């Protein structure tokens, strides 16, 4: 420790040190007092921002003179006496809330105009429609020249009839009843009549027509609106306006800013009963913690907690205590209305906190509670079902609050990240780098029933849970990225979590199509399950490559294929049209490798290629701006935008292939993948043909693997620089063989590279020759949740040793050592714990965690996991032939009772496969010796203290020197060694005390860490977070150090050393 010897003054006779306890520097003390008085100022009794609930007061508005400019955040529709209205909610730059009621925007759709239908027919046709549908639904019909989006039929626009209805809800009646099958008007319509643009949501229709995109800024010019004085909502400004009288600003330049939205992050605690997950009709809500932050600020300006029963002060937060739960809930509802958040976030609020509050309020018959939105309407919780090809199915609950955005961080995490565990604890550990104390819900009730201090403890915990979602959101930039996504794709913010990918593409398609005079057909959904061939994979040449492997990537492969070959709905040809218009192959149209026909851009530029081109050039712009921008907030916005643009460009292809989507067109999607396949093959051929010894190169290039949009090339040379040069050359060379804008790019080199199988590889990732960027691994399942931690530790360490240390021998040695330690029971228990959520009680098959939960309930119903809890277990040795599910056991029980672990299970079922995967490419056949060599010979089994024979077993002590059983004849009673080993006592003691010292340190470090994490020195650690690696370790440390002490005590008996 060099620091320690920095010159210490040797003066030994100094006056008392100023840091001593004598009061000194009185003047500065007075200064401080002064400063404190100033600081305290007016907010003497304001704790946790209790004076900041209200929005800033609204100055008087003169509709004749004052424009209203706001960022709109939410949109919905309603019907009132004047007809259908659209409601836009938003916030001004000054933080005032706005509700804009928009009138006179009538819903409509189109049908193709049949031959013989003339403008005189419009009025009778309207009457006909109203008659058939049984109401005055249709306001007006008109003729309009448009083209269908689907297929190239020549360039002449044709007539369509636009049918304008009175109400969005009645539009489907007209559409479904009158048009498709039974339209017998004048017998002009033969057979099935297709409809156009008839299945788009009314609000989205409105946004498209008025060029409003999600989260953009709206300007209402002075004189164009009327101010409402008897308001129907809780918004500060409420206006009426005609739909064509306002300005929608594209989110560019100045208008890319974000208004100071109020974001409420909250968390509730309920007092559950032992062993039962809280139920709203029984268990009270005892605390609600709230944090309100203004978007763009780093700290919440309101921090408070509503508690049932008294609670000690919490510095920096307002504690609001209640004697009755119903009062608490009602006051919280009032708080919410007063603080009027624009956005509500939390962790699992959609499925737990909000529904629980709603149900609880219902149970307590609190009629005034459920008014949480901005309108004076009752809030209700609904069950929703979400199904998407990309995100799978999910049943969830939804509690819509008009005018407020909701973002459940749990949903966000599940959607955007693939994680081992989605508990708030493990998400925070991963993204915020900190563990969170976890208080089990059975302890919550105990704390609640304790003292004001114990409730305070709970409150601090609850406040932390309310704050973490906000921090996560800031850290992961969820809000900004989603805002940009809404702006780029044009859909409302709330769609992003609630809906799938396709609505975003559809919104862009409509906008572009309408601009270009196309109409989008309603294909009626349904859809087939038709499959088509996916991307191609060049069969991997498995192995461990100790030379640089260059990776050539097609940048945005699918979008550029669509652009290069003009693949679009609007360019799709059929044979008839080719014949009818006399088109010439390769001049007027192309035939794709999938044998579909598309016209060339010279005939018609496709809409999708145009959209893609816009997206990609917009992304380029955003990236250029990003490089120039220095303001961190604007950088965040730009980065969010370029990401949103990239995702959008890539989802267009998926949209055309979504067979249950709105507008599937397999001709497009199959052609895209077909092109992709040929391009990968072609690249392989070109590279392998050009880079040969015959052509003057030093080595023959070898394409060892290729997948979707990249190929891995082994050029041969051993140095990175050469390979990087070759890679970039080859990319340029191959790019010339393809149509623009398809471009092969050289991005990175893997060196070394471990190719395990299709989509499974690992390597060091280099983009410059000086230093590798990172270790990259794909498809090596270290994050699977039903694996124990040991698997990922071992695999990661092995990869590290192979790739970074470049030492395969050491990786093998390490693996052998871990296996040997595993078999000898030396691996820490926390490494072996497997966790699974107890989602429901009636699983079809028998499952380890369910069985264990049942057994634990029999042992102690109080501490047993309840529904919704995560069950942690280890696999223990069972009797011969017992099934895996019977061998699960509570890790704590195992620790306490020394129950032997089934180490063989861990070797065979957990470690073996992943290990073989990474070692086989290197060692080939020999790899299996890792699992069965000498190092697997020694097996130690813990001596259990419970069960079967143990009741009859007598423990014999053995000599610590030679392991001989100690008997009265060869040793001192309770001593450490036999007489023969007595001379070795000093060294044996030394060894024993050394290991005891390690265990002591371990104990101390683990428990003090938990103390730090819980944020209190004076209170015992209560945390039971099973996701935290410390949890089992600290239990084990406690036991180990006591065992070690017991062994040391034996030396005390040895009097004569």
């Amino acid at each position, binding site marked *: *420790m*060099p*620091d320690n*010897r920095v010159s*210490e*003054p040797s003066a*030994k*006779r100094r006056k008392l040190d100023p*840091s001593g*306890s004598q*009061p000194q520097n009185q003047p*500065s*003390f007075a200064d*401080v*007092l002064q*400063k404190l008085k100033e*600081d*305290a*100022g007016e*907010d*003497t009794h*304001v704790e946790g921002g209790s004076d900041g609930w209200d929005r800033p007061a609204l100055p008087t508005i003169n509709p004749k003179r004052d424009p209203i400019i706001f960022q709109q955040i939410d949109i919905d529709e309603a019907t009132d006496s004047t007809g259908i209205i659209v409601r836009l909610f938003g916030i001004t730059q000054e933080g005032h809330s706005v509700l804009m009621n928009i009138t006179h925007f009538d819903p409509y759709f189109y049908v193709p105009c049949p031959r013989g239908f003339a403008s005189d027919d419009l009025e009778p046709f309207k009457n006909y429609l109203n008659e058939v549908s049984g109401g005055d639904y249709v306001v007006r019909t008109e003729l309009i020249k448009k083209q269908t989006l689907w297929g190239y039929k020549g360039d002449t626009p044709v007539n369509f009839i636009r049918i304008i209805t009175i109400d969005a809800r009645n539009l489907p009646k007209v559409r479904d009843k009158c048009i498709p099958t039974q339209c017998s008007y004048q017998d002009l319509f033969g057979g099935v009549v297709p409809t156009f643009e008839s299945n788009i949501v009314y609000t989205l229709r409105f946004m498209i027509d008025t060029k409003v995109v999600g989260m953009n800024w709206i300007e209402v010019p002075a004189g164009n609106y009327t101010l409402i004085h008897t308001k129907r909502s809780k918004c500060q400004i409420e206006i009426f306006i005609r739909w064509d009288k306002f300005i929608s600003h594209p989110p560019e330049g100045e208008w890319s800013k974000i208004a100071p939205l109020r974001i409420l992050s909250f968390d509730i605690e309920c007092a559950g009963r032992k062993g039962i997950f809280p139920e709203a009709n029984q268990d009270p809500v005892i605390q609600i913690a709230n944090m309100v932050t203004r978007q763009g600020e780093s700290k919440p300006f309101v921090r408070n907690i509503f508690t049932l029963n008294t609670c*000690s*002060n919490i*510095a920096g937060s307002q504690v609001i205590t209640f004697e009755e739960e119903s009062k608490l809930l009602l006051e919280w509802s009032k708080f919410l209305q007063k603080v009027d958040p624009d956005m509500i976030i939390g962790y699992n609020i959609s499925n737990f906190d909000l529904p629980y509050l709603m149900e609880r309020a219902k149970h307590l018959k609190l009629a005034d509670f459920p008014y949480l939105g901005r309108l004076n309407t009752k809030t209700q919780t609904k069950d929703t079902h979400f199904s998407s090809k990309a995100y799978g199915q999910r049943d969830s609950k939804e509690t819509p609050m008009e005018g407020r955005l909701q973002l459940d961080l749990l949903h966000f995490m599940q959607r955007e990240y693939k994680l081992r565990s989605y508990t708030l604890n493990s998400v925070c550990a991963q993204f915020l780098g900190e*563990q969170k104390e976890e208080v089990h819900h059975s302890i919550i009730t105990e704390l609640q029933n304790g003292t004001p*201090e114990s409730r*305070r403890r709970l409150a601090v915990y609850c406040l932390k849970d309310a704050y973490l979602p906000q921090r996560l959101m800031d850290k992961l930039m969820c809000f900004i990225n989603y805002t940009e996504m809404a702006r780029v794709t044009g859909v409302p913010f709330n769609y992003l979590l609630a809906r799938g990918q396709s609505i975003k593409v559809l919104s862009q398609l409509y906008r572009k199509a309408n601009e270009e005079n196309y109409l989008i057909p309603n294909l009626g959904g349904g859809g087939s399950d038709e499959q088509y061939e996916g991307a191609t994979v060049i069969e991997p040449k498995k192995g461990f490559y100790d030379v640089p492997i260059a990776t050539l990537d097609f940048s945005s492969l699918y979008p550029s294929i669509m652009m290069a070959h003009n693949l679009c709905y609007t360019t799709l040809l059929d044979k008839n049209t080719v014949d009818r218009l006399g088109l010439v192959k390769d001049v007027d149209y192309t035939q794709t490798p999938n044998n579909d026909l598309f016209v060339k851009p010279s005939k018609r530029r496709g809409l999708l290629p145009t959209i893609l081109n816009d997206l990609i050039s917009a992304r380029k712009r955003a990236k250029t701006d990003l490089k120039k921008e220095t303001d961190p907030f604007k950088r965040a916005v730009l980065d969010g935008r370029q990401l949103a643009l990239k995702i959008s460009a890539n989802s267009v292809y998926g949209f055309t292939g979504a067979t249950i989507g709105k507008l599937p067109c397999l001709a497009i999607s199959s052609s895209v993948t077909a092109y992709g396949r040929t391009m990968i093959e072609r690249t392989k051929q070109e590279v392998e043909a050009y880079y040969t010894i015959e052509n003057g190169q030093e080595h023959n290039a070898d394409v060892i693997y290729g997948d979707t949009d990249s190929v891995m090339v082994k050029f041969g040379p051993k140095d990175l620089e050469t390979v990087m040069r070759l890679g970039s050359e080859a990319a340029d060379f191959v790019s010339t063989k393809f149509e623009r804008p398809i471009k092969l790019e050289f991005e990175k080199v893997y060196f070394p590279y471990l190719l395990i199988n299709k989509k499974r590889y690992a390597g060091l990732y280099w983009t410059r020759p000086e230093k590798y960027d990172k270790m990259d691994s794909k498809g090596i399942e270290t994050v699977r949740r039903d694996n124990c931690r040991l698997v990922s*530790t071992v695999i*990661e*360490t092995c990869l*590290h040793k192979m790739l970074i240390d470049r030492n395969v021998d050491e990786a093998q040695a*390490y693996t052998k050592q871990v296996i*040997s330690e595993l078999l000898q029971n030396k691996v*820490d228990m926390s490494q072996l714990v497997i966790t699974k959520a107890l989602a429901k009680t009636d699983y079809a098959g028998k499952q380890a965690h369910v069985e264990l939960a049942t057994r634990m309930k029999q042992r102690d119903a109080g501490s047993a996991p309840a529904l919704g809890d995560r069950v942690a277990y280890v696999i223990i040795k069972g009797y011969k032939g017992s099934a895996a599910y019977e061998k699960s056991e509570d890790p704590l029980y195992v620790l306490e009772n020394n129950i032997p672990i089934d180490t063989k299970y861990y070797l065979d079922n957990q470690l073996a496969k992943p290990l073989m995967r990474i070692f086989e490419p290197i060692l080939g056949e020999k790899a299996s010796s890792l699992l069965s060599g000498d190092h697997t010979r020694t097996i130690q089994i813990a001596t259990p203290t419970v069960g079967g024979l143990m009741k009859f077993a007598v423990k014999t002590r053995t000599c610590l020197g*030679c392991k001989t059983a100690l008997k009265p004849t060869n040793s001192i009673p309770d001593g450490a060694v036999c007489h023969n080993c007595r001379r070795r006592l*000093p060294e044996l*003691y*030394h060894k024993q*005390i050394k290991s*005891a*010292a*390690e265990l*002591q*340190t*371990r104990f*101390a*470090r683990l428990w003090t860490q938990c103390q730090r994490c819980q944020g*209190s*020195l*004076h*209170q*015992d*650690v209560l945390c039971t977070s099973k996701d935290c*690696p410390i949890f089992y370790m600290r239990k084990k440390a*406690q036991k180990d*150090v006591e065992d070690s*002490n017991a062994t040391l*005590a034996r030396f005390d008996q040895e009097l004569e*050393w």
Partner: protein
Amino acid sequence: MTDSTHPTYERPSTYVVELQEGIPSYEIDDAKKTYKHQYSNIYYMRLQLLRSFVQTRAKAKWKDVAGNPPYIERVLEVNKGELCYIIGTIYMEMPLKPNVMDDIASDLAIPPPPPLTKFLSSEDAVMIEDESGRIQLIGDRLKKANLVTGVIIGALGMETSDGGFEVADLCYAGMPPQEAGPDVAPQDQGEDNMDVDDDGEPYELVAFISGLSLDDENCNDVNVAMLAEFLVGELDVKTSSRISRLVIAGNSLAPVVLLPLEDEETDNTKSWKNQEVINFSTAPTLQLGAFMLDIAGTMPIHLVPGPTDPSGAILPQQRVPRGMFGKVHEYSTFTCETNPVWLRFATGKEPESETETEVDTETEGDVVRTRWRAPRPPPPFSRTFLVNSGQPLDDMYKYVASPPTTRIQLAENSLRWRHMAPTAPDTLWCHPYFDLEPFILPVTPDFYVIGNQPEFSTKLVEEEDESEGKRRCRIVLVPVFSKTGALVLVNLRTLEATCTRIDTKGFAVKEKKAKELAEQRRREKEQEVKDQTEPREPLRKSTQLPEALLDDEID
């Protein structure tokens, strides 16, 4: 031995006397050895025990402050904007404190980076905590205070609008009481001038060494041999003949280096042989035994264990079994002590132990036999020592900026805080005591001796106030012998302390001559840099998963 050949230099005697009441023993008996308790109990006890002392002093200190600030009993009950004072435990929130989570999260087989020498960073926060909760302390006053986790303080100030507590002044528990003893004021000249050529005035010295750091290489180190010769009086008989006893303050052995096991004797096969394999050298232990044997015939030895010695890793370190060191254990003059340890030495010859006689007295015909204890002649002189091997100070040192703060200042603070190891258990590992807080100072010792320090330093600290009267304590930082070749001699009568260097030519020289010193320090620094850059445990083979994580603190 010198006594016989040089009768003019008769070695003075001192003997161990019983400690004052209230001074704890650091021996943990079997009943207390349990690890079932959590560390919160220690903090609880500490706050309970020290709060009243702080409060008494705070009351006196701030009684004249305008507005008569009240004492708020719970830190959370302070009112915003109201001047008041609170008492609680300091917690330093420092991101650079070693975090066991980092070690767990990182790859297990990859050695962790060497431990940091400082926790200090710009993101630190000072918290004050009691049973009710914690609140952040803010303000410039804190910068000068050199606070560390675990100190009990009183803070005068007020809560600001953002929930922090702006501190105007601080108050500590102050130095504990001291038994009014014979107070021989140190002579006014500096300690360096303490005259070894005494002028006939008798005086007794106690020698302190620490950090012999015996390992396989320096087993036959000439410096250690010289040290032994010096102590028994073969080199500088004038000085050494005044030394009445030796205290070894820790780290007699260097950190254990594991030897590679023979290949065929790896973990997997050794169990057949059934012999417990010792994979480190036992030579240093034997050498230490031999060293002490050389001396034990001349003067008593107290062996205090340090972090690298065969004792536990957490405080208090327990006695090393005497049997560890071979023949020296036969000497009654050889004692193994705990770390830390309180010792009290009296001057003169120990009175005969047979002071009890039985006396028959006849009272009204009954013969009553009573045991009569002859009044022990009061020792002419006794001094109380508090000795530790340096861990508490080393740990506190990581919390503060240095310069300006020096180790001696911290040691002094520790006395004024009335606590010798405040950072335990937060960053200094200690036993999970349940109903005891043995690191609180019950009395002010005459000498506070701290071993294994980079260099010698000493200071006489005094305090006088109404509640506890006058106290004074000589703080002595004992340098690492293996790096400085120096030992420290303290004078029981004058409370003086001097550092004496054994140079390789075999002469004891007093530490002087700035030039030489500077040169010496430069060399040491180079050596340290070298030590740090070299692999810490080049021979270690075991990478056993869990244990390997925690090596830092053990070494």
